């Protein structure tokens, strides 16, 4: 019986560990913004206006489709995602990144991005 409990405990702990996401890794890559709002339903931004690209060296590129342009920003992650003076709380949900504005009392506070290749 004791062994069974120990085994279950190991399984449980292993399960927990697997769920832990390292945001520094998880954020890398390209994300297309498809939602801005306050959490309520909004039709997806259509057509998408651009995507953002997190690089390993703390560089964030924001790309706009029309007119085509790219800007370079500095980002870093601790308990928040910081982009220059802006900072957001973040949540990874499968292939979606959800950001909540923390730097300002703003009209809209929630943005969502889906991972693109």
């Amino acid at each position: 019986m004791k062994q069974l409990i120990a085994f279950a405990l190991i399984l449980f702990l292993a399960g927990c560990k697997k769920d832990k996401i390292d945001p520094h890794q998880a954020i890398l890559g390209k994300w297309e913004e498809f939602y801005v709002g306050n959490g309520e339903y909004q039709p997806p931004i259509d057509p998408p206006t651009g995507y953002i690209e997190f690089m390993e060296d703390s560089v964030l590129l924001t790309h706009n489709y029309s007119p085509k342009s790219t800007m370079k920003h500095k980002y870093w992650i601790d308990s928040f995602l910081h982009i220059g003076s802006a900072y957001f709380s973040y949540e990874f949900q499968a292939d979606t990144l959800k950001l909540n504005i923390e730097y300002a009392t703003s009209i809209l506070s929630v943005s969502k991005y889906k991972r693109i290749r």
Partner: protein
Amino acid sequence: MKNQLLSAMILALPMLAKAQQSKPVPTVLTDKDGIIQAMEFSDNAPSPTDQEFMRQYLKITADDRFEKANDKERSPGNTDDHFDQFYKGIKVDGAGYNFHYKKGKLFYAHGHFVKIGNLDIVPSINSERAKELFAAYKQIPASEISGFTSELLVKEIASADSTAYLVFEIYLRSNAPVNDEIGYVNAKTGEVLATEPIFSHSSPHVKGIQPKTIQTTTPDLKRALTPANGNFATRYSGARTGSTDKDGLKYRLLDETRGAVIHTWNMQGSFDFDASVELLDNDNIWTAAEHAANENDMGLDIHWALQKIYDRLNTVHAVNSFNDPVAGAGFPINAYIRYGNTDIARNNAGWAAAVKSLVFGDGATVYRPMASVDVVAHEYGHGITDFQIGWGNSGDQGAFNEGLSDIWGAIMQHRITGGNIWQRP
């Protein structure tokens, strides 16, 4: 039978009203522990002095002291006094009382008095140790700490059923990771009892420590030669005039003619305030042809609206900027247009509390530039709320914060561009 009962009640109502009139009773609001949060004294009832109120109604003890932090005469005889609470000489964080007088008579008292049973106010650790413990809690290496400030306070800890503790409030500057929280370290045990985000904290002693990016003056540019009146082709409000000033050969959106500096900057899509630049014009006639590209003309709407909002509050209500100081210049009103280059930043406007500034997106992707009078007044309202009440942007505080700002937006749009905008057409 029902009808008779109803008419009896109706008959009784004027009597009730009369009974109240003859013996006026102060209206009292108390918290769950019975401590008075607000008390209103009617005009024909006697009312106590502030000191009497503290003794009689708050029942303060020899350990409690209220220190007047601010008194303000709004018109002759009408004054507003604010007192901070101290316990055995230590400031009680977030506690204090306000007294409002009409023609010298107290008519309304309200505030938050923290009743403390018996708290030992001799710390067992020093502020240096409290800083170390908070840094460890935040996993900030000592080598990354570029400075800190601390203050010994008595503070109610929300997660501990609002029990009051002796704490060190620690503000710690660090480069990597950037620290955006204030720590409250138990001055007896060294335990980190609570943290608060810096952006929603509005105690005066924290306001002094702002990120270096805040631009309250323009050190890079020489002082203005003369203030001038610019002609603005605004995006939403037609042709307007607003104060600018001339620096060298060009005019910029800087107004130093009022009781607080009003300065409108251009972020050009950056998130970094250090990257902001002046909006400039050669002849002070700011045309759409010159400025509509990249939505820069939104700066004209905002610069003009800020001056109008300032004037309405200042001339009608004698309120100077967000902070309305007893004396001296009001807090600088800095607005940044074209803040950020993501959809959420561009289709947005906000009050960035950490830098006490207004930020506006260029729209351009989903909406149009965020620069109409009601939007500017809404964000200006957040500035007032931040300085005067200190509400944050989440939960109930966030909801009330937004509600108040919507009211500011409606009032100012009505006062500045006219029309009863809250009525359906």
